[in-house]
């Protein structure tokens, strides 16, 4: 069905899924959120483990994420205007955070590359601090963009920001698994344990969010849960998130003996792919509050 016919069908129905984010060109927005989230997590993990290649990968991912965001906008040429409403808009805050990250990260990486012996120099430090501020914002803002969406009860949950922060760290660990497999730097064993820990947190937050949406009494939120678990998004969820993002990496980890770099890289890649499908499914699961017909007189 084309977009226009779909809109007319949606307008006639009580149940109206949002079709702007995560559908059609809107997939670019989810790609952007996914890449930027992974970039933030990777920057943190690479800083902890001291993996310069990880910092560079994080930077490239963030730049690609920014491009995906721009490509999604109806009027990308006006994007700079998105900084104006930072007092109330999480998108504005995210835009500023991403800009800071790209500026600070760029300065820091350039300084590391051009003056590797002067890591404590003022330019390097300035870049590092700006990038750190940007990292905190890009890891934190995304979930709030969804929580601020009052029209979509499934997203309008205080758990959503926590879930997105946990996703960022899971993405960061996944990226570092791939990088350490390719470069041989960093402790694979520590990373795998961390992956298990972060994955447990993500699963817990997600389960709590689903439970809250199902039992919270809001019909639109229940529609969203039904869509994910047994409806139009079940394939994305069971195939992409559960099978690819959880069962495959767990099966790889359960193979006895030392894990080969290839297996570690596969754990990272499947885990990241699972996160992408999870984000896509939860974004597509957004269902608008239905407009309730007043059957009889009600008082305000």
């Amino acid at each position: 069905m084309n977009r226009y016919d779909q809109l007319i069908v949606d307008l006639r129905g009580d149940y109206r899924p949002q079709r702007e984010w995560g559908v059609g060109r809107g997939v670019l927005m989810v790609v952007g959120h996914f890449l930027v989230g992974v970039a933030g997590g990777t920057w943190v993990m690479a800083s902890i483990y001291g993996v310069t290649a990880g910092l560079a990968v994080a930077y490239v991912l963030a730049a690609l994420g920014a491009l995906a965001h721009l490509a999604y906008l109806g009027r990308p040429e006006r994007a700079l205007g998105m900084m104006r409403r930072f007092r109330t808009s999480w998108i504005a805050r995210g835009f500023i955070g991403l800009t800071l990250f790209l500026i600070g990260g760029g300065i820091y990486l350039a300084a590391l590359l051009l003056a590797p012996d002067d890591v404590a120099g003022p330019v390097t430090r300035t870049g590092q601090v700006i990038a750190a501020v940007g990292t905190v914002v890009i890891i934190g803002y995304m979930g709030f963009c969804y929580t601020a969406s009052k029209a979509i009860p499934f997203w309008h949950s205080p758990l959503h920001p926590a879930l997105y922060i946990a996703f960022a760290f899971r993405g960061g660990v996944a990226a570092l698994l791939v990088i350490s497999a390719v470069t041989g730097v960093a402790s694979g064993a520590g990373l795998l344990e961390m992956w298990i820990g972060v994955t447990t947190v993500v699963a817990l937050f997600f389960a709590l969010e689903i439970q809250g949406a199902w039992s919270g009494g809001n019909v639109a939120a229940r529609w969203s849960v039904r869509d994910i678990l047994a409806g139009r998004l079940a394939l994305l969820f069971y195939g992409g998130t559960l099978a690819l993002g959880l069962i495959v990496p767990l099966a790889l980890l359960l193979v006895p003996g030392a894990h080969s770099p290839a297996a570690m890289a596969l754990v990272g890649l499947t885990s990241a792919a699972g996160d992408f499908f999870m984000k896509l499914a939860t974004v597509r699961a957004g269902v608008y509050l239905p407009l309730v017909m007043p059957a009889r007189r009600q008082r305000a």
Partner: protein
Amino acid sequence: MRLGMVIDLKRCMACYGCQMSCKAEHGTPPGVFFARVLKREEGHYPTPRMLFLPVLCNHCSDAPCVSACPTGASHYAEHGIVDIDKDMCVGCRACMMACPYNNRYFLDERRYYFGEAGPTPYEEACSDRHPEGVVMKCNFCRHRLAEGKDPACVENCAAKARTFGDLDDPESIVSRLIKERGGFTLHPEAGTGPNVYYLGP
């Protein structure tokens, strides 16, 4: 002054006059309805009944679409009217996710009512008002208000179900109707402070 509207559901006969007059006034593209009438059948034979609900932007006093907008394109204009500056909008659609009443539309590409035949002269004349890549919605017909007229949907409601006026003035007709007949708003639990009230059927 806080402009608002009262819609009397007892008078509304779901004739779509508001929807059509709004389309004519604003020349909105296919699929865009600043004002629309929702209909639903309730009950079973032999006592079914049809319920109508005309909806439009509620010009909320605490509009989540305005706070979600990163650019300031969605803003409060004079007398509490919520409007969009089409030249500032980036088409991020955060406002559409924030509006609990589904009253915003994104125009992804230019569409005409007669497809292959191309735009009618009227559509051509109106197309500048609705550029692609941005979000649009009802603005209480600000251009008409500036000329001292009521919004088109109010003026053209054959059943006189719509009343427009100042909600801050306790003596205005809208305020009195709300008080005397127990006016209510949609989704009051969302805390948006809608300025469109309904009188029960």
